[in-house]
């Protein structure tokens, strides 16, 4: 379905609400307030889905939200996730290859979060550990040196454990994504390009994948870096320093890939994500294309259409139809949004 309308009529809002119902989060903001219409106290998003099921999420400006399934309040909001799955693709994603490493970590996190429910907790714990730790460096000088080191040891131990688990999950997802993405890349480039994805962990992970080994390794690295950390206040070991490298025919796509090549990779990654989620859950996720289709050249638009085909429901937002390939328009339902003022 293509959703057409002027800027500001709420096209992205509509897509965002699907994202919110499918993942309980928005790529735009983590705060409830930002998702509620200006000057209103409350927002509500509802969707009717297959089998006459209804899911809703109620957000309050004062904080707190409530999740409903078939009008029944859910005691655990996470139970809302499941009936709807989605994969988002916005103009921002086009920066994935050449942008900051944080973009790639965020992208990876969103995929892992969809597939492993524990992961959000791990990320939350890690970022809290990191914040506590950096605040500790600022508060220091109050304590004796020995107690200080004991306290840092206590943080090291926890961070090593959580880091190990985050590294392991990120690597595992990339391993599963790689064959799918590289086969899409091959398809999208008429077999001219071979894609490889390399995980560059922010901790040195040596040897076999083993929780104990990695943990001890990371703990040792944290200790080694402690004197440097004392000066800078920045922790230099851990998943917050992770990056992902994309290689096309063995060459780093971030530095040497053309803009078109980089777009093809992003497209291949999104299609791989779509496929991965489908394999895991046995149901096609909804593809959300927010103002991005027009950014792709006609050739890639057609390839995307071909790949998405009839298999996936697809919501597309755009300001005008001119930049769409004819086939997209012919095969889509059109919805025109007008502002209500």
């Amino acid at each position, binding site marked *: 379905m293509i959703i057409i309308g002027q800027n500001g009529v709420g096209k992205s809002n509509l897509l965002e609400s699907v994202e919110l119902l499918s993942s309980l989060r928005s790529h735009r903001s983590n705060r409830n307030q930002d998702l509620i219409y200006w000057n209103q106290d409350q927002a509500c998003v509802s969707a009717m889905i297959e089998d006459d099921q209804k899911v809703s999420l109620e957000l309050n400006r004062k904080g707190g939200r409530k999740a409903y399934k078939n009008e029944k309040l859910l005691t655990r909001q996470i139970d809302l996730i499941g009936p709807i799955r989605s994969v988002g693709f916005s103009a921002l994603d086009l920066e994935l290859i050449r942008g900051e490493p944080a973009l790639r970590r965020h992208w990876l996190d969103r995929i892992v979060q969809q597939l492993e*429910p*524990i992961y959000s*907790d791990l990320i939350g714990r890690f970022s809290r*550990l990191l914040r*506590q*730790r950096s605040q500790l460096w600022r508060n220091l000088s109050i*304590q004796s040196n020995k107690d200080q080191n004991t306290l840092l*040891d206590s943080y090291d131990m926890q961070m090593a454990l959580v880091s190990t688990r985050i590294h392991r999950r990120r690597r595992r997802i990339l391993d599963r994504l790689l064959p799918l993405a590289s086969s899409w890349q091959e398809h999208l480039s008429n077999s001219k390009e071979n894609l490889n994805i390399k995980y560059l962990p922010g901790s040195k992970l040596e040897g076999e994948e083993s929780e104990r080994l990695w943990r001890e390794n990371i703990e040792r690295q944290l200790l080694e870096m402690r004197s440097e950390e004392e000066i800078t206040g920045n922790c230099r070991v851990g998943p917050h320093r992770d990056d992902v490298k994309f290689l096309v025919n063995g060459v780093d796509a971030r530095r040497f890939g053309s803009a078109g090549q980089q777009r093809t990779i992003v497209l291949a990654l999104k299609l791989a994500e779509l496929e991965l989620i489908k394999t895991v859950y046995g149901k096609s996720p909804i593809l959300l294309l927010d103002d991005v289709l027009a950014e792709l050249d006609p050739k890639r638009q057609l390839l995307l259409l071909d790949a998405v085909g009839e298999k996936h429901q697809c919501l597309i937002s755009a300001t005008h139809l001119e930049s769409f390939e004819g086939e997209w328009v012919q095969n889509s339902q059109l919805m025109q949004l007008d502002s209500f003022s």
Partner: protein
Amino acid sequence: MPGIGPRTAQRLALHLLRQPEEKIRLFSEALVNAKSQVGQCKTCFHLTAGEQCEICLNKQRNQELICVVSESRDLLALERTREYKGLYHVIGGLISPMDGIGPEMLEISSLIKRVDKENIKEVILALTPSIEGDTTSLYVGRLLKPFTKVTRIAYGLPVGSELEYADEVTLSRALEGRRDLD
């Protein structure tokens, strides 16, 4: 007041206004007395009206066992179980640099001194399973290791709950803390 929203506050205020004056006077005296008389036990820092709390004064209790809790309300919860017969140490919070709480602001050095001085066979850490609770447990544990045996309470499924309804985080913690079937 914690846990009281505007509606409950209004109900309480109206209820108090309806009471006879005598009752209100006794109530306010009780509040003033509580404030002036209740202090901290000099040994374990639990709330008490005397110099030492009833638990520390009770010689029937196991004098070789100390349970470390963050606040007096945690101690009261443990007491309600009637299962624990040892002594306590209330450290008064959890280490959290973001809130400006460092170890020196908690009753940790007094705990170390106490364990060092007295013949303590085991210290049980009963702190909340959060980043701050875990940090405090690890920190206190490391400092106490040279003096005595240190254990911590188990985390996992609440008794009486159904496994299938437990959330993923609790379940994974419970899996982590699994133990041999004896």
